[in-house]
């Protein structure tokens, strides 16, 4: 299956600080359904800014963002929340699990704002936890899990709503090499099952292992391996 899930056209972002920071200087690319790609670049190159804009958590200063057929600039804040609740999944470097909840309820909260009933949310969460290999940990409280397990829970939470696109910001940034490899392996598996995933990383090794990578430097695309033969 293919088709555009995300399109960026000349996206710029200037933070109105003094002096203003030009974090993105005209970024354009398309992402098709079922892709797995990395956005790679040094610290301060604008990766997180780009992720926030792709995830509709922030609006671009200029340019257009189209997600799952919706042009972000035409949508109200409320509509953007709706878009996120159904079409976008996030994975963060710091996991951001809720400490008072079990693994299962952390995942189920990925569906909290869809209006789905609690029993259905839990059923879907159980399924998502099984998919990331954590079925046996579902009743454990989030704070008792290891870093790798927490990130798996976070990934399950991002996937549970079957979003059009999953955005992961440095998902392995807080993990050791071995755990990090396992997480990347999991993302590859999930992609093979059909999920569209964008991984943001400053780790070139991870980026090079991905089918496609976009290099970012000073807010500008340095390279995009789309269309190039995969090595």
């Amino acid at each position, binding site marked *: 299956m293919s*088709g*555009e899930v995300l*399109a960026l*056209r000349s996206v710029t972002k200037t933070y109105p600080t003094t002096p203003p920071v030009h974090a993105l200087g005209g970024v354009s690319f*398309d992402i098709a359904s079922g892709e797995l790609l990395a956005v790679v670049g040094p610290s301060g190159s604008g990766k997180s800014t780009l992720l*926030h804009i792709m*995830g509709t*958590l*922030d609006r671009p200063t200029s340019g*257009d*963002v*189209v997600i799952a*057929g*919706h*042009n972000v600039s*035409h*949508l109200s*804040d*409320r*509509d953007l*929340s*709706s*878009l*996120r*609740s*159904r079409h*976008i999944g*996030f994975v*963060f470097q*710091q996991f*951001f699990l*809720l*400490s*008072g*909840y079990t693994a299962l309820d952390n995942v189920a*909260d*990925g569906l*909290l*704002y*869809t*209006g789905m009933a*609690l029993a259905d949310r839990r059923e879907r969460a159980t399924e998502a936890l099984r998919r990331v290999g954590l079925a046996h940990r579902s009743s454990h409280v989030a704070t008792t899990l290891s870093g790798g397990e927490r990130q798996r829970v976070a990934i399950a*939470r991002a996937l549970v709503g079957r979003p059009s696109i999953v955005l992961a910001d440095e998902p392995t940034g807080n993990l050791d090499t071995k755990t990090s490899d396992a997480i990347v392996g999991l993302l590859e598996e999930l992609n093979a099952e059909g999920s569209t995933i964008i991984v943001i990383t400053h780790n070139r090794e991870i980026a090079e292992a991905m089918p496609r990578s976009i290099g970012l430097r000073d807010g500008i695309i340095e390279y995009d391996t789309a269309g190039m033969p995969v090595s």
Partner: protein
Amino acid sequence: MSVDPRQHNEDQADLLPSKLHGADVLRTAVVGLRTRKLRAALSALGIMIGIASMVAVLGLSESSKSELLAQLDRLGTNLLTVQAGTGIGRGSGELPEDAAAMIARIGPVEVTSVVSTVDGANVFRTDFIPEGQTGGISVQAVSPDLLDTLGGTVAEGRFLDAASSTYPATVLGSVAAERLGVATVAGTQLVWLGDQWFTVIGILDQFELSPDLDRAALVGLAAAEKYLGDDNVPTAIYVRAEPAAIDAVMGVLAATANPETPEEVEVDRPSDALEAREAADDAFTALFLGLGGVALLVGGVGIANVMVISVLERRSEIGLRRALGATKRHVASQFLGEALLLASVGGVGGVMVGYAVTWAWATWRGWGVLVPPIAAVGGIGAAIAIGAVAGLYPAVRAARMSPTEALRIG
């Protein structure tokens, strides 16, 4: 295929709005508070103390008021006393002999009972106690209808009647009986009264409207005249009048009792003292209610404080929830929900504690327990209102936080 971003104007059509069920707001609030138990408990405690004190104050004042009203009801508010003033310029201590008859002629007067102090007569347990040690017990000559007029009751034996009023028989007031060491009328109990033995035929319960008589030995008017040389000149007259005309009667009593020197007559309405007590209680109730209100306010400030801290601490949670699709309104409702839950828990706890305090105190005092329903409903209502006010600012603050700022962890 490529997409022209500018062609997507009708997008909203298939975009289902994100929503949050009320039950989930409650669940989220419960978990949110459960993960910060101590803090939640302490801030709920503030509200609880405020509500508990207000409910207890209302409950106690209502219970004591109903007790007082029951007392007034029992004793009636239509009893008036007419007494001869004593002291320089205030009178001789005696009323005119025909005062009772004159008063009885006032239309709305229902009954009159005469009391005449027997001067110089003392009461002793035996005949060899020195004259000076009277124990503060006076001897009063009374008519048999006095007990009914005063609404008094007999603890032991019986009261004076037409027959016993002519014999050397006496009925002791509660304090007098205690001081004389007469606990029963069984057998033949004698007391040394005015140089001769009198038989104790009855002991009275405490008078609630005329405590003077508690410290008296009562004898019949005829007996007083015959055995003690009393002149039967009234020193006090107890009057029951129609309740509707009580003020009018009060106005003419002095002049009727002693037309020549009405200023030497003291007219009293004993139930006024009880009513004054009720008014005093009301003033105290208002004061304590005010203090309870202050406690409640402090509790509210405590909740606001805890919620503001909570919002700052949970920035990443707010960011995460926005990323999961929460609208500003959803975020606000979560924090408002927590504040309301805290306050309602405090309010319900406060009402229960207030009830318990009222129950314990009223039971101890032997009153009926009476907490006005408005105190319970109002208490919980006030707590919820305080929670809403206290939670509003933190909730708005949480909602206004930009998602990217909330996610940037420092």
